[in-house]
């Protein structure tokens, strides 16, 4: 620490940035490998198959084999492509996907950049994905790619509005755009106070909108396999094609982490210290028959409760658990539902989800107003209903 503090501030910023950046990159790639394998395994389980089986234990090293294969594959460079667009597009998608991870809080103060405008940053960064899609589609000089890119652009732009609108409810409840503040607000409210419950409408809208935002089934129109071969990445091969896949899965994981942060309380959850203290309490029979073992466990729990590192580990554990719940949900939906058509997608976005999310903002505002108004008053009639209002406080 002293060594670190002795460095000049500029060096601290640069070194810290590089360190954080590489950690985020590694974390993203790790998530990619797991997501890719999960996608295959879950699809296989749903379809009564076993999935990849040969490489490693039950096939779990398959993504590495895949990456090696894609690495050594030929880079096909078609003749009439727009060279720079064609070359850069995959990497832009990859970078934007990784950027989202920058603002995900893994624990209390355990975050790469704690932006005050976190939610706006999310909206801005996911907007870049359009550019990657469109560059790839336009640069490939292929009709299918172009169609896919047009679809992707229309879809991403229209769903971005819906997605941000669905998040406004959460922002109103937490009173902050900063993600760590949102998590702390949820932590204060306890398990039932996670924004999943008072913001149920916003949650569902966000779920649908971000599936569309991620280009995942049933909204995978930009790369609709059965219609447009592979959409915007039809002409790509080898590692450049893999970049699109990397971007897709890292994006999926990042989106799931954001959803977990905003609606499921992020990293909040019992830490090891709390668990131990609780266990000790139980062993002591809640004070009824205090014994040395229970006391020891409770004391140990109390002693490690303040440990930053242990709390961080617990935070990462809970965040990853919640994240993978969402990833599983996305995969489960993908392997169940048929794809919607482009006009239906637009109808859904503009005519259903946007009004619903606006209604959610209105509802949240009203309920909060009522809740705040009645907060100080002693309420006797319909106390359950009124206590319910506390949710929106």
């Amino acid at each position, binding site marked *: 620490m002293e060594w670190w503090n002795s460095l000049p501030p500029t060096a601290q910023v640069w070194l810290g940035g590089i360190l954080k950046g590489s950690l985020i990159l590694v974390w993203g790639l790790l998530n990619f490998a797991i997501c890719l394998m999960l996608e295959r395994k879950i699809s296989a389980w749903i379809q009564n*198959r076993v999935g990849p089986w040969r490489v490693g234990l039950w096939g779990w090293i398959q993504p590495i084999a895949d990456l090696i294969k894609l690495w050594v594959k030929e880079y096909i460079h078609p003749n009439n492509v727009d060279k720079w667009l064609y070359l850069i597009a995959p990497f832009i998608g990859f970078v934007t996907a990784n950027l989202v991870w920058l603002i995900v809080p893994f624990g209390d103060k355990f975050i790469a950049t704690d932006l005050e405008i976190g939610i706006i940053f999310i909206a801005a960064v996911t907007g870049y994905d359009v550019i990657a899609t469109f560059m790839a589609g336009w640069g490939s000089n292929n009709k299918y790619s172009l169609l896919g890119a047009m679809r992707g652009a229309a879809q991403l732009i229209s769903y971005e509005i819906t997605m941000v609108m669905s998040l406004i409810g959460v922002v109103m409840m937490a009173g902050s755009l900063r993600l760590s503040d949102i998590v702390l607000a949820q932590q204060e409210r306890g398990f039932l106070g996670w924004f999943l419950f008072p913001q149920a409408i916003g949650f569902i809208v966000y779920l649908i909108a971000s599936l569309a935002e991620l280009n995942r089934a049933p909204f995978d129109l930009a790369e609709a396999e059965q219609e447009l071969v592979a959409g915007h990445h039809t002409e790509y091969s080898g590692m450049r094609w893999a970049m699109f896949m990397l971007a897709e899965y890292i994006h999926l994981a990042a989106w799931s982490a954001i959803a977990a942060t905003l609606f499921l309380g992020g990293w909040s959850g019992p830490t090891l210290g709390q668990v131990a203290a609780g266990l000790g309490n139980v062993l002591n029979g809640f004070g009824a028959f205090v014994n040395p073992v229970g006391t020891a466990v409770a004391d140990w729990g109390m002693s490690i409760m303040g440990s930053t590192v242990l709390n961080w580990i617990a935070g990462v554990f809970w965040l990853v658990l919640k994240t993978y719940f969402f990833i599983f949900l996305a995969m489960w939906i993908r392997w169940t539902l048929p794809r919607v058509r482009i006009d239906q997608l637009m109808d859904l976005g503009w005519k259903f989800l946007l009004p619903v999310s606006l209604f959610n903002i209105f509802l949240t505002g009203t309920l909060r107003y009522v809740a705040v108004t009645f907060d100080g008053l002693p309420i006797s009639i319909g106390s359950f209903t009124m206590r319910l209002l506390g949710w929106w406080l």
Partner: protein
Amino acid sequence: MGVTNFVGEAWRTGKSIATGLKITFREMMFRPAITVFYPDQRDEVPPWFRGIPVLKTDLRTGEYKCTSCMQCAQACPVNVITIEWHQDPETRKKVCDRFAIDMSRCMLCNFCVEACPFDSLVMGYDYELCKVDPENLVFEFEDLLRLGLKYSSAEEPGPKAKRSETPPWVFHGLTNATEDDIQDVRGYLGRPPLPKGYEPELKPQFQQKQAEDETAATVEPEPAAKPAAEAKPEAEAKPAAAPAAQAGSTDREEAGQP
């Protein structure tokens, strides 16, 4: 679209999606995988499976059964069977010089087996016929004989009588005959031809059957053919089906649960 309609439609859509998700979840959690791990485990092959047509050897004499009568070649819809023969000047019998099936064009239709009047051809169990070089897909006489050893038997099948009773492609169960059981009377497999007047000595696993056949033939030469032919279909179908079924069931149990 009124508000009721709006909400009702959303409800119906959500409900149908939930139903779908429930079904896939049930499939995922509660139903076993149906995958057969192919190169390690094979699926069951039923007794009447139509694989490559192969030639049988009469294990009593060690001679192949084909008499070059050309019935199969004529019956073949795609003309993949090539037979070349010459007449032996001494015995006045046809001697097969070349019998080749071009498996690249064969469509496994079974017509050749049905046409064969001497129970010489049979549709084998072998279905992994891929070769690196397509020219190797032309299966020559010795290849077909080698593949057909499994289906050969040391007993007289009674070809004419059998034709009307059961289909000829139901064979007599698999034998463990090896290449040495072909006596190579014509010098076909590259070994020197056997001396004239050679009496083949049967391997132990075939001797029992031969003895039974001989007793049957010596006691009642004339009527023996018919009862034998009638009794055979049952006797033959069972051993053929039983090993296949056993093999299949074990495979299934192993394959069912990953």
